[in-house]
């Protein structure tokens, strides 16, 4: 990542924080390229037996893309919000690719709760989740974004609260209702 791109990303993040919504859209391709590249590298590590952390991945992208001499916590939270959108795009695109893959043909089921201590893995179909999130966005945009940030980029409630300038209790309530709503929506399909 060149220095000029680093300045560009930092500038766009600041613009977005100050209310320029177009900055968000201009950030996405810049972040996409970096995250996609990092994700591929992380895959190889995962295969080599390492533990993967989305937050670590996004944090690494952040360190690459943002001028760290000018770093602020709010910048990081806002960067993660963009990254969440990008991660959603990458993961859902990938799931769609798998579905139409000549070898696969079946849906990608994402196993969750994979910690060794948790005996039963739950799973969520990312494509169905993406569709349900689009429906949720039409009813309650903030809740869909909360899910995006929490589920696709691993942001904490406090970080999400910072992005929306609301209390973390509000984010926690958003997250709770959104999960229930999405679950019901996906079950009804």
């Amino acid at each position, binding site marked *: 990542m060149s220095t000029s791109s680093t300045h560009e990303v930092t500038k766009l993040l600041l613009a977005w924080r100050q209310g320029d919504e177009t900055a968000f859209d201009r950030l996405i391709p810049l972040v996409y390229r970096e995250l996609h590249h990092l*994700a*591929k*590298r*992380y*895959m*190889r*590590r*995962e*295969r*080599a*037996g*390492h*533990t*993967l952390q*989305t937050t*670590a*991945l996004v944090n690494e992208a*952040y*360190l*690459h893309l943002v001028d*760290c*001499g000018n*770093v602020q*916590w709010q910048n*990081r939270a806002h960067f993660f919000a963009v990254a969440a959108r990008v*991660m*959603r795009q990458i*993961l859902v695109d*990938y799931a769609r690719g*798998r579905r139409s893959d000549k070898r696969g043909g079946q849906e*990608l089921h*994402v*196993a*969750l*709760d*994979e*910690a060794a201590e948790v005996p039963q893995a*739950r*799973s*969520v179909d*990312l494509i169905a989740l993406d569709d349900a999130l689009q*429906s949720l966005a039409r*009813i*309650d945009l903030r809740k869909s974004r909360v*899910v995006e940030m*929490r*589920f*696709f*980029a*691993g942001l904490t409630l406090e970080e999400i609260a910072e992005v929306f300038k609301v209390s973390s209790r509000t984010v926690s*309530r958003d997250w*709770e*209702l959104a*999960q*229930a*709503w*999405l*679950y*019901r*929506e996906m079950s009804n399909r």
Partner: protein
Amino acid sequence: MSVVMTTERWRQIERLFHAALNCDANQRAEFLASACAGDDELLREVNSLLVARDKAKGVMAENAFQAYAREIAADNAESTPSEALRDDSQNAISELSTEQHLPGSFALSPGTMLGERYLIERKIGRGGVGIVFLARDKRLHNAAVVIKLLAEGLLDLENRAWFEKKFRQEVYALARIDHPGVVRALDVLERRRPLRAGGDVRASFAVHAHADLAGPGL
């Protein structure tokens, strides 16, 4: 849900959903019946969300990325893990060479003092994951010791925790073995360095007895 939802209706549902969760479970039905005041559709809506909430527990407890990684890994299963690791550590060195990623100050040069006790004399070797230095124990009359630390290329942010853990496990295992054929582990040191971006990085150093001087039979 096919019915068009007004913002007002949605706020109503949201309010009742949270209010119901704050009720004792045995009073919930009564509370909702009274709060919905004959609006059966509202009651059904809130109830179905409460049911979904219980079923949804844990479904999104962790985020989506790990599984994606496994899928990719399965797709590329033809190459071996060791190849992947080698490939990766090269990448890590070339891509993560910026100051905020690698703990440059962890590089030990002759004359560096570690933990106010071990004086680095010179580098004596480098293996796949570690670098080995000869040092002098200033508290024990300059006794020769060997200091091992993880190679820097493996010490980027994401891999660190895993390697550090393995590194320490090895040291603790060696520390329990007392056999003339096994180099004793004497100590583990840790150094921290703050990152400009916040947080810090840590590196473990293992101190081993120097094999040549460790005793008879070696």
